[in-house]
């Protein structure tokens, strides 16, 4: 027998199947159906982790989701690594590789354990706040590395996660959360009439507490057999979906519940292409919560040694897995459920050294049973301390006198201590659903009050403790008749004793743990209260009680009771911390689902993408678009490529894909009036066939978009917007059209994707297009700057704009997107007769900056007015109203010291400023004095033969010629304020 603590028979594991696994590199064997925790206990391994602050040796406390101590990392190789898993929920599979955490060099010999010996107070409540205060500079060098080293959780995976994760949206009439007695009963009853029912349970097998009750009979059947039959009945019903290994982790508005289903973590061999986890986004007509209750530990000195665990957990290990928690047990209980554990263990051959009961008298049934089993019961008694380093070896017993004082009585040798501190309803999901909790004074527990949604709590989570009560509530909730008869049960009463157990020892010298995972002691909570914290929310944050990955499942109520005691107030008056999703940690992969890598966001490509790729383009992301950034020749740097492209455009010409510009067709009898109201410019007199630069403001008077707008017909405008602004502009237009200007007959259509746009810019632009157009006179006289013609080009229909974003003679050829590549190739071939270049967005930026053309979002930041940009000429001053007009005369908009757009010329012409850099009046910035503004655009300009920049500077237009400074890490850079135009100031090049 290699598993010394495995019972000879019993439990639901498959004893025929031996499962080898390793823990911290050492090989063990368990059985199919084991968890890592049950298999380690079976092998006599009590030590499973080290605590967070003090590095104290810790064993398993619970048997399920509540486990605070036994956190492990599971590694499957190939990037599959998951830290901080609860050993109690890790299913054993062949070849499982698990490691303990927070120890060095090993679990048994851990250097960090010295933290346990430092004088009391150093790691006390609020130690983060007290210890790491000053000096400020020490944070980075001293405190942060220390905290990171000391923080005792698992390490972050280093490799990309090779698994994939999936999402499913689902609907049902009734969702049942939890498949214990109450949940199975509710599911059976609810599904009888054909309602669509989904049952979700976190465990691999359904049945919950029914699997831990060997003596209990339901309608004469053993409880586990009844559960198996109930599950079989549900499986046979086509209207029922049963989800095991599925945690309902979050409960949101309108019965929207998030379920995290683990699909492959329990398998030795991973199936190819199967998702690891599935997140269910479930909308339920009704939700039945049957989430059970969580047993609480007792807060006594040294209550954290390996071998000290919850009594209910010990029953689970014994009855579900056939594992004894030890050979000599002391049971410390506050209610009858401790007796149930003692009786089970005694029958399995564990020597029960004593049942230590806080109460003067046990319950009637428990007393009878204890008597029959000849258990040694110590009433009105407590444990006041324990001994043993890597495993508990003894418990100190004290007798509580009538006045509440404790007198030491004896030491009892043992190798496990079972704590039955009372059961607390798992109201987490109920609370998340915004249901209000009520406090049950008699039992000292919070219970669900009035639900906020179509929801019902049944069973232990509703305070109905024990199998009989749970079945009754479950069947009633499902709308069925009487529940089956239950016999042989010792039902827990719930609640019971909470807070710190009294003892005779010096409270300053003992550690009685409340929060095992975050190492918070009763002393810490009392200290927080002494230091002035009154609200439990503040006490929680100051002490970190309940803030670890277990979210206080075994510590919140004890912490609350200790705080209430210290404040001398009833528990409900101290408040209750908020229960937040997720109930147990959910992987990032699960939330991301398929939204990763190339599926993270759609990719938008223009018609010429493949051509650009073939011609060596480097791309940049602009919103979702891939845009050609620059076209380097072999061996050419970005700087050289951009300089060449810019020079070529101005010397002969260039071709540029401008398809990503947003395009909106504004159509209708009131189109011009609509444009008048949405743009600052006047549109009434713009003739069909002409274009105008349009400026769009929000109602606050700030520039939000711009673009060239062509009038095709009296009732039709071709609007262009910035690349990123198209959806926002259309929404803005729709908003006013639908809700304010409802008198206007106008239709808006997004046409961004319909048109490919090819900009041909430079002195030879007209010569390139001349042989390609059909039925359009593009001569200088017939088609002036800022005009628009419809006709054909390269054999396909076009809207041909004569516009320039470079300052050179320029056209923008709009063709239906399907013809974009063919048109581009034809234009490109023609342009090669003149030695023109394809240019990308970087050259486009440089060329426009040389002319001082703004880019909305670069020169503007949502606080910039037309006047700030020197664009007053674009405002139709005679118009009675347009969106933003009234705001332009608010007092703040007229201040002389507003930041205005200016140019900057650095004293050193080779110095290219950093975009976004702050600008100051003094070379050395004066503390407390705000910056004058910031650099908005900056480039090395081939046309200017030096660096150029644009900037927003307070009162900038009155500072022409002044020197300002741009402080940088390497020293301040001096620059002179100038007009924001650096090339062809009189615009003579527009006509070629």
């Amino acid at each position: 027998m290699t598993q010394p603590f495995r019972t000879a028979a019993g439990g639901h594991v498959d004893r025929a199947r031996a499962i080898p696994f390793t823990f911290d590199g050492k090989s063990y064997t368990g059985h199919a159906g084991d968890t890592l925790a049950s298999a380690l206990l079976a092998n006599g391994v009590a030590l499973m982790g080290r605590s967070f602050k003090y590095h104290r040796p810790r064993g398993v406390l619970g048997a399920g989701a509540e486990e605070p101590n036994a956190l492990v990392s599971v590694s499957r190789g190939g990037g599959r690594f998951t830290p901080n898993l609860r050993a109690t929920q890790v299913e054993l599979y062949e070849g499982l590789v698990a490691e303990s955490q927070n120890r060095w060099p090993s679990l048994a010999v851990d250097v960090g354990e010295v933290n346990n010996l430092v004088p009391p107070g150093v790691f006390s409540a609020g130690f983060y706040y007290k210890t790491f205060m000053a000096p400020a500079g020490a944070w980075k060098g001293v405190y942060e590395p220390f905290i990171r080293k000391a923080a005792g959780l698992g390490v972050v995976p280093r490799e990309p996660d090779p698994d994939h994760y999936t999402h499913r949206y689902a609907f049902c009439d009734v969702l049942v959360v939890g498949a214990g007695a109450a949940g199975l009963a509710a599911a059976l009853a609810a599904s009888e009439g054909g309602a669509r029912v989904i049952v979700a349970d976190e465990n691999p097998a359904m049945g919950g507490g029914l699997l831990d009750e060997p003596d209990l009979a339901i309608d004469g059947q053993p409880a586990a057999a009844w559960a198996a039959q109930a599950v079989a009945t549900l499986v046979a019903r086509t209207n029922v979906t049963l989800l095991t290994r599925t945690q309902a982790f979050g409960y949101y508005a309108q019965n929207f519940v998030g379920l995290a289903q683990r699909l492959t973590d329990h398998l030795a061999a991973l199936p190819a292409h199967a998702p690891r986890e599935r997140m269910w986004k479930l909308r339920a007509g009704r939700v039945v919560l049957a989430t059970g209750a969580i047993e609480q530990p007792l807060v006594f000195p040294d209550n954290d040694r390996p071998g000290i665990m919850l009594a209910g957990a010990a029953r689970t290990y014994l009855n579900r897995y056939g594992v004894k928690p030890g050979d000599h047990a002391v049971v410390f209980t506050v209610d009858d459920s401790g007796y149930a554990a003692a009786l089970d263990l005694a029958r399995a051959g564990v020597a029960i050294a004593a049942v230590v009961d806080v109460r003067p008298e046990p319950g009637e049934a428990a007393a009878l049973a204890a008597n029959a089993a000849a258990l040694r019961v110590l009433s009105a008694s407590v444990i006041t301390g324990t001994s043993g380093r890597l495993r508990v070896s003894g418990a100190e017993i004290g007798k509580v006198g009538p006045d509440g004082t404790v007198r030491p009585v004896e030491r009892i040798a043992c190798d496990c201590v079972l704590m039955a501190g009372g059961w607390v309803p798992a109201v987490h999901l109920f609370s998340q659903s915004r249901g209000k909790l009520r406090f049950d004074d008699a039992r000292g527990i919070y219970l669900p009050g009035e639900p906020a949604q179509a929801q019902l709590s049944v069973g232990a989570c509703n305070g109905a403790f024990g199998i009989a009560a749970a079945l009754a509530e479950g069947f009633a909730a499902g709308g069925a008749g009487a529940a089956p008869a239950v016999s042989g049960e010792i039902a827990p009463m719930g609640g019971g004793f909470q807070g710190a157990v009294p003892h005779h020892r010096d409270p300053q010298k003992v550690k009685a743990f409340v929060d095992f995972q975050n190492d918070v002691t009763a002393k810490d909570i009392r200290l927080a209260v002494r230091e002035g914290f009154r609200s439990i929310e503040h006490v929680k944050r100051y002490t970190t009680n309940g803030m670890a990955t277990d979210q206080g499942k075994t510590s919140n109520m004890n912490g609350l009771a200790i705080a209430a005691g210290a404040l001398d107030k009833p528990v409900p008056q101290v408040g209750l911390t908020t229960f937040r999703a997720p109930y147990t940690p959910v992987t990032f992969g699960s939330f991301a689902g398929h939204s990763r890598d190339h599926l993270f966001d759609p990719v938008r490509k223009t018609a010429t993408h493949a051509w650009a790729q073939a011609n060596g383009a480097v791309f940049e992301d602009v919103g979702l678009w891939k845009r050609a950034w620059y076209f380097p020749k072999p061996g050419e740097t970005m700087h050289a490529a951009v300089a060449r492209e810019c020079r070529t455009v101005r010397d002969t010409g260039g071709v540029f894909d401008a398809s990503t510009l947003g395009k909106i067709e504004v159509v209708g009898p009131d189109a011009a009036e609509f444009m008048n109201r949405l743009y600052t410019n006047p549109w009434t007199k713009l003739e069909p066939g002409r274009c105008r630069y349009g400026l769009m403001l929000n109602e606050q008077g700030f520039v939000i978009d711009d673009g060239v707008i062509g009038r095709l017909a009296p009732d039709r405008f071709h609007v262009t917007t910035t690349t990123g602004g198209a959806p926002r502009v259309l929404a803005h237009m729709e908003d006013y059209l639908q809700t304010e200007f409802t008198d206007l007959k106008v239709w808006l259509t997004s046409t961004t994707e319909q048109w490919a746009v090819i900009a041909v810019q430079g002195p030879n632009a007209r010569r390139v297009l001349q042989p390609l157009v059909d039925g359009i006179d593009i001569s200088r006289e017939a088609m002036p700057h800022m005009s628009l013609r419809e006709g054909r080009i390269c054999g396909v229909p076009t809207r041909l704009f004569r516009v320039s974003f470079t300052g050179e003679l320029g056209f923008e050829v709009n063709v239906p997107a399907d013809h974009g590549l063919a048109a581009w190739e034809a234009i490109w071939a023609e342009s090669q007769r003149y030695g023109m270049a394809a240019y990308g967005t970087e050259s486009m930026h440089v060329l426009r900056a040389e002319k001082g053309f703004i880019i909305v979002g670069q020169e503007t930041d949502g606080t910039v007015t037309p006047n700030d940009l020197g664009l007053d000429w674009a405002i139709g001053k005679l118009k009675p109203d347009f969106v933003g007009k009234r705001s332009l005369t608010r007092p703040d908009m007229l201040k002389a010291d507003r930041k205005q757009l200016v140019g900057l010329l650095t004293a050193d012409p080779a110095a290219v400023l950093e975009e976004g850099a702050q600008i100051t009046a003094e070379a050395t910035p004066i503390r407390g004095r705000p910056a004058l503004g910031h650099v908005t655009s900056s480039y090395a300009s081939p046309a200017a033969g030096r660096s150029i920049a644009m900037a927003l500077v307070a009162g900038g237009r009155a500072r022409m010629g002044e020197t300002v400074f741009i402080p940088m890490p390497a020293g301040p850079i001096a620059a002179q304020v100038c007009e924001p135009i650096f090339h062809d100031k009189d615009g003579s090049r527009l006509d070629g």
Partner: protein
Amino acid sequence: MLLIRCPVCEMDRPELEFRYGGEAHVARPLDPSSVSDQDWAEYLYFRSNPRGVHAERWRHTSGCGRFFNAIRHTVTDRILATYKAGEPKPDLATLTGETGR
């Protein structure tokens, strides 16, 4: 995720299809030029921000594209009614009475 009834589509649709649009029934003055600076600032920047029942604009962005109004309780997130833009605000007392809570 909320389910929101689009009064145009007459369907309950998930929140993801909608875009929030701020407080409803804040009418743009018909003649902004005659509005004082103070009143214009109130119109631009000041909203009721109640703890409780709130009339607000939503747009069914990924559906019919229409703006409409909703009455939502800002504490419970419960949407008590939705109605088309331009329709009068429903009587809140009746609404809260009808839903019981």
